[in-house]
């Protein structure tokens, strides 16, 4: 599943049973915070992070912040 298709897929919150909505989410790491467009449940606030995002862009960002 690509990043684009993951963001467009009809994801639902398992706890609330409602569709996740696109939202600007603050991702924080090592004292820095960044706004990222992700899917979030408007009721409970749970955020869906696609695997590809975590393994590619987020991993790269973490490396940069860790000064590696």
């Amino acid at each position, binding site marked *: 599943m690509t990043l684009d298709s993951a963001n467009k897929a009809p994801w639902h919150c398992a706890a609330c049973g409602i569709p996740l909505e696109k939202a600007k989410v603050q991702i924080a*790491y090592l004292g*820095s915070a960044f*706004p*990222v467009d992700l899917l979030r449940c408007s009721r409970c606030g749970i955020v869906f992070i696609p695997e590809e995002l975590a393994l590619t*862009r987020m991993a*790269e*960002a973490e490396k*940069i*912040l860790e*000064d590696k």
Partner: protein
Amino acid sequence: MTGGIMRPGGFSLTDRAIASCSFPAKGRVLDAGCGTGIVVEHLRSHHGLLACGIDIATCASRPFAQASVYSLPVKTGALNGVLCECVLSLLPDAGRALREFGRVLAVDGYLILSDLYDREQQGCMRELLQCCGFSIILWEDHTKALRELGALMALQGLDHTTCLETKKSTGYYLAVARKDTC
């Protein structure tokens, strides 16, 4: 996160530098290498300075002049301040540019620099400023802001390698210097 400009620290570093200077009301300030002119507009609207920009490329923002930083279309001693943010490291002859900045600054005028630098050789930049007739009144490392910009670009899937380069010792500094009296 960067306030609309793709530069480490965005406007926060510019504002920090301006706060450490004692510009007169409506002080005359030049943004050397102004790009889109967004900083010129910020200096005018947020700091009340009579700011203008120059760049080697054309710019839609006003006031602006298309010129080289080596040959500024400004009278000697006419300015209270010169900003050169994220530009000096791109120039083949930084010393020549610094001497030109010194020419257009009034005595005690301020030079504001922010740019990439080699953290293992920070003395070189300080020495160059002093050789060009400036006294440093502020020198700060803001490498964290550089890394944050790189991380932001990585998260957005943008190429951050030109921003961070490959050397581990690459950092980002903010400096404010004053033109010496002689």
